[in-house]
């Protein structure tokens, strides 16, 4: 017996001419929280529907807790708790009525059922709304009812399709905590297109794009896979106002792949994004270049690429794009990223306002892996503090590790 709770082998599914899923294989072991990540229409929901025996794969097979989806669908269903996308519930029922119905469907009656319902209600903190009609509940509470129904039979495996979508940041945070809690003793698969989600909640990430598995790693490994960092270099504008010279100088530094100008935050500043060709630390070389070239370095900041960038690379590129983002694509991508960043900034401003202490702590932990440093140059004090302000700004903003787009925004 392997330790795998969920085992998918060469799952394929085609709807008519369209291949929704192509030879997807993966295993999830006991107690693992797996994030299933991909753009809309990539095949996340299809995979989950196959795992729950709602639909049958056109090729391959899967087993959950030792039960095969073809041979023993009842066994599979007994082992799982499932929360479909958008949390469909019988809205005309009371919460308690609904949970009683679910318990009965799962074969529990009498005191056993009551005990289980009580436990699920406690776990999901539904106590206060238990006698309300589901239709009167907020989205966050509905989501909890959805989770409660998936927990009544204490299944070893939980399959959650987009459990955070449509929730406001507070609600999302609560559900996130809940899933983490649940994930301690159970195997959980959750699908999402939110990268921050995955980083916070999941032990492992599967990225799926156009029906194919493109990555299977821990969030940290995935970020490392993107490999190199990039640098944000702030310099003082020289008298001629000529950024060409500085740009060329930066470009000549050994190990620099590409230098792109960025919109400056303040007058008299020039900002460049420097992409290295290897993963070696280039900060010394860049600083040396400033000294040699005679321009004033106001800020120098190293950033590793966020999961976001990896995700984008994996799901929009032809394949193993993270190694090389082609130049042609870059400009189009920049525009996209800019638009995204704008939207993100708005979202985040809102989010930040609501964020509580806990989350900030968590985020910090994560961020520490991002290895963000700001090196003060030997220029005047004002601008030095300027640049570190800048860096800390980024820090708190970017809870989705969306460094890349953050940067591009600026």
């Amino acid at each position, binding site marked *: 017996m392997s330790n795998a709770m969920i085992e998918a082998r060469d799952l394929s599914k085609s709807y008519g001419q369209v291949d929704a899923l192509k030879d997807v294989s993966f295993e999830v072991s006991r107690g693992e929280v797996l994030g299933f990540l991909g753009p809309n229409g990539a095949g996340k929901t299809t995979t989950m529907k196959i795992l729950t025996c709602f639909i049958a794969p056109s090729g391959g097979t899967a087993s959950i807790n030792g039960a095969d989806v073809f041979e023993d669908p009842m066994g599979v269903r007994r082992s799982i708790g499932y929360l479909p996308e958008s949390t469909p519930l*019988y809205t005309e029922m009371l919460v308690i009525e609904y949970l009683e119905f679910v318990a009965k469907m799962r074969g529990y009656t009498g005191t056993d059922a009551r005990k289980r319902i009580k436990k699920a209600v406690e776990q999901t903190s539904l106590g206060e709304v238990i006698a309300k009609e589901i239709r009167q509940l907020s989205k966050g509470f509905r989501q909890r009812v959805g989770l409660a129904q998936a927990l009544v039979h204490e299944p070893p495996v939980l399959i959650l399709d987009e459990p955070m979508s449509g929730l406001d940041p507070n609600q999302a945070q609560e559900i996130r905590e809940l899933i983490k809690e649940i994930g301690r003793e159970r195997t959980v698969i959750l699908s999402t297109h939110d990268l921050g989600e995955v980083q916070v909640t999941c032990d492992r990430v599967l990225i799926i794009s156009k029906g194919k598995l493109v990555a299977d790693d821990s969030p940290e490994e995935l970020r490392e896979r993107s490999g190199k960092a990039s640098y944000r270099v702030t310099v003082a504008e020289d008298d001629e106002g000529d950024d060409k010279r500085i740009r060329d100088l930066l470009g000549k530094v050994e190990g620099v792949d590409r230098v792109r100008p960025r919109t400056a935050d303040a007058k008299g500043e020039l900002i460049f994004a420097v992409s290295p060709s290897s993963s070696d630390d280039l900060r010394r070389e860049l600083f040396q270049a400033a000294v040699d070239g005679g321009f004033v370095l106001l800020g120098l900041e190293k950033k590793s690429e966020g999961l976001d960038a990896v995700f984008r690379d994996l799901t929009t590129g032809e394949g193993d794009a993270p190694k090389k983002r082609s130049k042609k694509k870059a400009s189009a991508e920049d525009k996209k990223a800019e638009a995204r960043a704008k939207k993100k900034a708005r979202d985040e401003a809102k989010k930040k306002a609501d964020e509580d202490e806990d989350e900030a702590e968590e985020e910090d932990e994560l961020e520490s892996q991002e290895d963000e440093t700001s090196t003060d140059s030997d220029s005047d004090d004002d601008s030095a503090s300027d640049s570190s302000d800048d860096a800390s700004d980024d820090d708190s903003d970017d809870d989705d590790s969306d460094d890349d787009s953050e940067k591009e925004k600026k």
Partner: protein
Amino acid sequence: MTNIRTIAGRQFRSYFNGPIAYIVVAVTLLVLGFLFWQTFFLQQRATAREMFNYFSLINYFALPAVTMGLLAEEKRTGTIELLITMPVTDAQVILGKFVGVLGLYLVMMLLTLPYVFSIASLGELDWGPVFAGYFGLLLQGLALIGIGLACSSFTDNQLIAFFAALAISVFFFLIDKFLPLMPRGLQPLLEFISFDTHLDLLRRGVIAVRDTLFFLSVAGLAVLIAFRSLESRRWS
């Protein structure tokens, strides 16, 4: 078995949690009472035959209305996914739904009992045809519920389910009314599949195996179609 009962119970209660049951039951009883009692006293006879006649007419509209949401609504809201991914078979889901509506229909039939007792208090009522009449209504109900369930299984739009079920039901009602216009060779067949042919006999108090089997076959076939249609989601 437990699963069927649980699903049926939920379905039955959901009718009474919302307005549907009250509207359908109330309208049915009102229309029935109006049509029936209006002519009852002119006839000067203590018979419930006309009541069964009117009831069966109303069924052609009422039953598509109560069955239209059975699966269509669950598909639209997605609750079907939660229901089916519990440890139940597709057959149990279909049968549970069927029994749930049947429960509502039985309530409707029971609520006409006061009419029957009123008739009995007004004159000498022959209970034989009354029993056969109810039996006929039950059979017709089974068939119509089956048709409604099948229609509901093909769409996620309740209105489409309603009109499809209505069209099929009315077809079975009207088919013998146009008998003279039909090709001679087809006439026996068309007469046989007409609901009224079989209901007439029952209303007269004749319970025949042939009529019973006819309605049960229609119901069975429709339920089978609904089952297949639900199952087909797995492969499409």
